[in-house]
């Protein structure tokens, strides 16, 4: 039995095509501007002089990120009306009917996963396509990826399969919320901070 569902993301394979983002919007009928899964384009560096030669030092990679259904769901801890709960299988879900729309959880989430839905005047976020999951089908974003950069499953199993990396630049310290997330880093991510990389597509996010 799954005790903590989790996502795996292979940053070394992601091309930034955003098919996962669109599949999520399509599956969940999200309005324009509302994204439950987002693809961050991380870019930095430029040219650096080595001896007499100028060489490119560009870092560029993508991070596909949704709610990480954290083991320590700080959004649920922050919610004053207990509108956010955690299921036995680890999924963190918003109970829209209880939400008062104070948006405090948006500040509390270090992954910026909670998004305000103007249609319901409540917060919303990735629910791991739990209805599909309960029918034995995968979350919409996973099969949509043409590079197979996304996977899902029990956190312990994913760690056995892919390792236990949970943080690459510019993700926050995992200790803040203990995300149910496993990442295969892109080779550039180790140099990203040193080369002053930053998210390059805020206007899309």
């Amino acid at each position, binding site marked *: 039995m799954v005790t903590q569902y989790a996502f795996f993301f292979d940053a070394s394979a992601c091309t930034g095509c955003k098919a996962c983002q669109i599949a999520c919007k399509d599956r969940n009928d999200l309005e324009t501007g509302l994204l439950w899964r987002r693809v961050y384009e991380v870019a930095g560096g430029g040219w650096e002089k080595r001896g007499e030669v100028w060489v490119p030092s560009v870092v560029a990679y993508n991070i596909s*990120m949704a709610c990480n259904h954290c083991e320590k769901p700080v959004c649920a801890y*922050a919610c*004053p*009306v207990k509108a956010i709960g955690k299921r036995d299988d680890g999924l963190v879900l918003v109970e829209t009917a209880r939400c*008062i*729309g104070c948006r405090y959880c948006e500040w509390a989430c270090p992954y910026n996963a909670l998004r305000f839905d103007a249609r319901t005047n409540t917060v919303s976020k990735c629910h791991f396509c739990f209805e599909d999951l309960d029918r034995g089908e995968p979350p919409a974003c996973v099969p949509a990826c043409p590079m197979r950069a996304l996977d899902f499953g029990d956190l312990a199993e994913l760690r056995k399969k892919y390792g236990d990396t949970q943080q690459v630049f*510019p993700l926050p310290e995992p200790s803040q919320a203990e995300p149910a997330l496993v990442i295969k880093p892109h080779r550039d991510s180790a140099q990203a901070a040193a080369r002053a990389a930053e*998210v390059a597509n805020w206007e899309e996010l």
Partner: protein
Amino acid sequence: MGGEWSLVAFTITGQLAAGIYLFVGIPIYFGLGDAGAWLEGGWRPGFLLTVLVLLTAATALSVFHLHHPAKAYRTLVNLGRSWLSREILSLLFFAAAVGVLTVCEMLGIGGSGLGKVLFVVGALAGLTFLLTMSKLYMLPSVPSWNQVHTPLSFFLTSAVLGACAVAFLLSLGGPPMPRPFLALAICGLVASFLNAILLAPVYGVFGVKPRPSLRPPGAGSAFLHAARLLLFAAGGVILAVVLAASEVSGPVTERAPAMLVAVFALVTAGEVSGRFLFYGQSG
């Protein structure tokens, strides 16, 4: 940034209420010479009613940032974990304590030992309210809030506005001016000024890049930062003039109440600028 106006209004009004309660109440209930006698004669229980009105206004203003205000009554259900629930509880407790003391004053039993005890209970509730309000924003996910500047600036807002309020009330009695409260307000303003300067790089006001994260960069506003500093400085200069002329009767002491109202307005405007800047950092 403007979307947080109700939280700006709520926090500043709540902090003003706590400041007035503490700074007017301490001289009244624990006697501070002439100041205590003057306040006790003219402002008991008026200041308590003022605090109650401010707390009611703060509560009403806070509701405006909710998108489902009709469900707001549920906000106390997560006291075990949520600082927002705890803030609302401490606000209600503070208001209840002030309300009970007000009733006692109206019944004429506020001057007894019971009044002192109730005042202390209310003071502790007010301080708890300020503390929970600060803790609410000290989120690891928002690094610019998760530091000692947050409680420091909230308590300073309360102290400076409270000291300005009591200085104004005492000035209505004519000379001598309330030197200790004027000095206290100036010290608080200097501390607020320094705190604002220290925070400027954290808020990205001087073009300092914030720490990378998945949260969009905050809206550092040089205008709001400069406005806060200028308004604090203007208020501090007027306070210093009143303090310098406080010993002798003359044009300054005659106009002191009007000057202190101007100080209160300037400092409040400075606090509003600073609070909008604060909320702009949330991303």
